[in-house]
């Protein structure tokens, strides 16, 4: 596991999220945003085992999913700032970033991309078995704990098993569907629901990034053999559900428990103490600062970009 690369990628996502939060306060982001600070390690580690041809479907809390799949940072920030140089020319915004080239598709309906991911995986398998395009590409569907009570998500688990599809479902369980705790919404543990459908499933708890790394490698290898898999990763979001949320419904002890084991802190400990890594506090601080400087630079470029009047309101409603 290339821990330094993973660490840097996580820091990039965190820096972008923090920068976006600042831009909101400056009134430069139109709309809403759902930050993934605290959860970044999940898509970063999953993406270690993905290629550009693998598809990722994402959620409203998808900034980390996008950047982990190597979407261009400037085009991403531009999308959130509503500029025409963004991935969707500003039409999508935070919840609807998509990039065909990167095979990344986010949408705002909770769990709604699960059936679409099933279709993407179906097409990969079909193209391979019909010799249209030989491939072993997979689809990864990110989901939250909230989405796991939507009927069509459970339909998707069933469909994936019944059709034997190359799809990996990754549930980021941060304990809150907006403000409602999983204890109130779920009858069983989430990964057990996938097991009940006959799907191979695993649980990663306590931000255990090393366990996630081991499981991701094994599961993604096997998913490529047309066996669907499910990983529940328990984690915690540091900020509110969306930009205005003050987290008043969260238990303070619970928050402390999870902030103490933030994946960034755990990784830094490993980078500093391990015989193989042995980075100093100073070195890590410098890495962080370099990343923040770079993100600041990119962001200011985007902020300063001025669009002329938009005349494309009606373009692409239909595909000609």
């Amino acid at each position, binding site marked *: 596991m290339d821990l330094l690369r993973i660490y840097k990628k996580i820091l990039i996502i965190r820096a972008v999220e923090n920068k976006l939060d600042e831009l909101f306060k400056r009134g430069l982001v139109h709309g809403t945003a759902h930050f993934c600070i605290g959860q970044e390690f999940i898509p970063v580690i999953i993406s270690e085992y993905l290629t550009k041809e693998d*598809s990722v479907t994402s959620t409203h809390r998808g900034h980390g999913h996008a950047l982990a799949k190597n979407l261009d940072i400037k085009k991403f920030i531009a999308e959130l700032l509503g500029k025409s140089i963004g991935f*969707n*020319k500003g*039409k*999508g915004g935070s919840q*609807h970033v*998509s*990039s*065909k*080239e990167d095979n990344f*598709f986010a*949408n*705002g*309906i909770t769990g*709604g*991309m*699960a*059936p*679409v*991911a*099933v*279709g*993407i*995986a*179906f*097409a*990969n398998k*079909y*193209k391979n*078995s*019909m010799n*249209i*395009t030989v491939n072993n590409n997979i*689809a990864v569907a990110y989901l939250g704990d909230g989405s796991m009570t939507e*009927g*069509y998500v459970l*339909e*998707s688990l*069933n*469909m994936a098993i*019944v*059709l034997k599809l190359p799809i990996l479902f990754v549930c980021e369980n941060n304990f809150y569907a907006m403000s409602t705790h999983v204890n109130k919404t779920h009858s069983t543990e989430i990964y057990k629901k996938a097991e009940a459908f006959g799907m191979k499933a695993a649980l990663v708890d306590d931000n255990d990034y090393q366990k996630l790394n081991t499981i991701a490698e094994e599961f993604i290898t096997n998913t490529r053999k047309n066996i669907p898999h499910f990983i529940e990763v328990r984690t915690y979001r540091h900020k509110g559900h969306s930009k205005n949320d003050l987290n008043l419904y969260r238990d303070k002890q619970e928050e402390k428990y999870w902030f103490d084991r933030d994946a960034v802190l755990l990784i830094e400990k490993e980078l500093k103490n391990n015989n193989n890594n042995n980075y100093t506090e100073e070195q890590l601080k410098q890495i962080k600062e370099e990343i923040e400087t770079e993100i600041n630079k990119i962001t200011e470029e985007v902020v300063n970009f001025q669009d002329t009047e938009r005349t*494309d309101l009606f*373009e*692409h*409603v*239909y*595909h*000609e």
Partner: protein
Amino acid sequence: MIKTYAQVIKDTLDEELAKDQTIFLFGEDIGVYGGCFGATKGLLEKYPGRVIDSPMSEQTITGLGIGAALNGLKPIIEIMFMDFITLTYDQLLNHASVFNYLSNGQTPIPLVLRIPAGGGRGYGATHSKSLWSPLMNIPGIKIVTPSCPRDVAGLLRASIEDKNPVIFVEHKSLYQIKEEMDGAEEFIPIGKAKIVKQGNTATMISFSKMVRDCLEIANKLEQENISIEVIDLRTIKPLDMETIQTSVEKTGKIIIVEEGFSTSGVSAEIMARIIEECFYSLNAPIKRVCTKDIPLPCCPAMENKAIPSKERIEAELRALLNE
């Protein structure tokens, strides 16, 4: 060569499956059973692996179609009864219809969704509805309504070729209707209505199965030397306002006949467009004959009063002529 509506669907799907490997069929009971109304009979045997019997999961059937279309295939999915379109609605509205727009053309969704509308067979309130009106409200999709066997192949081919999500609305009472196929159009463009009977006293605008009823009534009035024009919309989204406007200017009297509910119906949309675009060409208020705004009862005596009957259509037409 005489064929039924169902046979033309089957034969057209057969031809298209043979031509294009990226096409596959997905739906409930379409394979082994051959489709609830026999429209896909024999296709599984001919195209193993490409005609798939799905578990009952309409939302995910639709999502699967959308995802497959996004990833380079041309799915033709089937939803068994139009009443069940409700279960597909989120995928159609919040996914299929937005992806091309939000991606600025990078991710078109060339999906065809086949579904039968229509009552009059006593299947009851949850198996008899013609729910095209809520679909008409969705930006970015197209809705096609072949009214006869001769139009099926042309419209189905156009739907498959179209790169947008197309709802291909069949009709339960049309499946076994037979017609001579000689001279049928091989390709019918989406968005173009057809004047199926020329006339100059009044215009009947209709689509799907009710076109047949309108033609029957119009031909009956022809015997009384009353000249009625009949428009078969063929596509209800996008609406062919050019053909409609020409007819409004010609006859000045319009009656819309359709099997959807009255309130907020397709008929209401057509009325709104006529008023917006050619109001001053009207000589009388527009009339419409629709299914009554009630849950559809089962027994024939009541069902026939709810769904537009030929008697009701004729009475309304005659009332329009007297305006």
